């Protein structure tokens, strides 16, 4: 297969599924325990320097902002991350937490390109391999399925392929050439969800993004939630559990955990805060000032909520669209 096209970039993780299986067997258990802890403890216990992490969802929508601010606060220096993301991964880059990334998109859609990504990439401080959104989602899906690669029709023929770590594979039935996407079983997955019980059975409303895939493609999984519900309630609606307890390592109670982003059916994004933030990112100095004010100087998520203020939060809540 040596003449088959292959991307020139290495992979941050080798997709060895027997290694993943052995790790799961040794470290994960289906035992039902209480997994509720605060954000500080969840990050301290489950995120190690050098880890490959991934966040869900995207933009300023159901993003695990509370947990990411906690990572920034704890001063990590050598994380790697996979993915699309906007504000939560920008904070990690701006906070100096990230060395390398397997990136699909980092930008502000209607508000333009990411100043933080530009500075990090153009200075050479951040090492980037490029992938597409579906490629990343399918790489997580492959890991979730317990297979080391999955065929796809994306990326073929492009520099996105050449600057990724993808290879190609031929279908043994049809002879069709496919991109072979390597599985991504990240060290830590971080998801913000609507609710969970104390054991880690998680429900998400609205679009599921890639929460299903990431939850199953994470060795360790931190889920922050708007609300903690009883296990009786979970057992009443087992068909609404998207992430069963044994995938989850930590449940963190973070109401408004996506702030300044939105949470469908719960609260709208804080448009003014976002605009001020994006303005701040125009210079490194202002970015650091923002980080100081909104991450370093706050002891925890509650302090953030206090700083935003109950009135503002209530107003954001009132602006959410209903069902």
């Amino acid at each position, binding site marked *: 297969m040596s003449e088959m096209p292959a991307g020139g970039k290495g992979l941050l993780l080798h997709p060895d599924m027997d290694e993943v299986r052995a790790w799961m067997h040794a470290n994960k258990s289906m035992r039902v325990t209480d997994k509720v802890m605060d954000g500080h403890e969840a990050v301290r216990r489950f995120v190690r320097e050098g880890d490959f992490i991934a966040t869900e969802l995207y933009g300023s929508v159901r993003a695990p902002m509370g947990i990411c601010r906690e990572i920034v606060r704890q001063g990590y220096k050598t994380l790697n991350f996979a993915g699309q993301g906007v504000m939560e991964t920008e904070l990690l880059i701006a906070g100096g937490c990230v060395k390398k990334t397997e990136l699909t998109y980092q930008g502000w859609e209607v508000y333009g*390109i990411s100043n933080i990504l530009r500075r990090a990439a153009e200075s050479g401080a951040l090492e980037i391999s490029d992938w597409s*959104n579906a490629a990343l989602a399918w790489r997580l899906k492959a890991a979730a399925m317990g297979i080391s690669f999955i065929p796809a029709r994306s990326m073929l023929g492009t520099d*996105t392929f050449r600057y990724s770590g993808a290879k190609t594979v031929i279908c043994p039935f049809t002879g069709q050439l496919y991109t072979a996407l390597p599985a991504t079983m990240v060290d830590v997955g971080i998801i913000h969800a609507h609710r969970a019980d104390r054991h880690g059975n998680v429900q998400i409303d609205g679009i599921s993004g890639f929460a299903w895939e990431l939850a199953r493609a994470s060795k360790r999984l931190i889920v922050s939630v708007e609300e903690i519900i009883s296990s009786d309630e979970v057992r009443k609606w087992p068909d609404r559990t998207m992430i069963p307890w044994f995938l989850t390592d930590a449940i963190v109670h973070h109401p408004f955990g996506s702030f300044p982003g939105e949470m469908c059916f719960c609260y709208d994004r804080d448009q003014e805060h976002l605009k001020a933030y994006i303005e701040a990112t125009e210079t490194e100095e202002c970015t650091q000032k923002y980080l100081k004010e909104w991450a370093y100087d706050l002891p925890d998520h509650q302090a953030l909520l206090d700083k935003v203020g109950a009135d503002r939060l209530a107003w954001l809540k009132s602006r959410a669209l209903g069902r």
Partner: protein
Amino acid sequence: MEYKSNELLICIASRQMEDGTSAFIGTGIPMLAAALAKRMHAPNLVPLFEFGGIGGTLEHLPLGVGDSKTFYKAFAALGICDLMETAQRGMVDYGFLGGAQIDPYGNLNSTCIGPHDRPKVRLPGSGGANDIGSSCWKTIAVMQHTARRFVPKLDFLTTAGYLTGPGAREAAGLPKGTGPYRVVSNLALLGYDEATCRMKLLATNPGVTVQQVIENTGFELIVPDKVGVNEPPTERELTLLRNDIDPTHLYV
């Protein structure tokens, strides 16, 4: 009625959307164009948003492809894999794309200007663009028309157009019968020549000459004998856009 350049782009993009078809909608102009098309000639247009929203009403203008307005009163709120796989199995008609650069074969760059490892300008990256450009039947690019953006060779080929020409997509493994269909720019509407897969002028925008289009294109453009002229935005289009679709003027 007076109109802004953006408004013209939105109206012309909107008119490319056929009733009863499905289209992947990105943030910005395609969202406004889809919302406009649904209110004008394409009430049965099905907007798809890559993170899971499908069949929404577009009553409220989304600010991002994952935001709650993409699935407000939608028929289904699914996930990114489901949507991308729907396209991969051939069920999505159109994809709308943007980019910093486009080449004569409709290939797009949204990754970087300058070398990848030390770019002069780092752009956001593919996002879903590469996937949409690979799997949808027809893609429509929405571009600002300058010679620095319409280039003979991209700094980085993020999303496949016709690659190097006829047969190249299939040879690379991309699905049969797919590829770029239209470019909607602030100067013109463009398509592709069937035999060569190279970009071809179809119609100029109101007040724009063929010569202006040629001058603002950094490669040799196919200019047929007959070039049409696009209709300016109608009063109804502008009123809908300004009062109904984007009343807080986020985009227009």
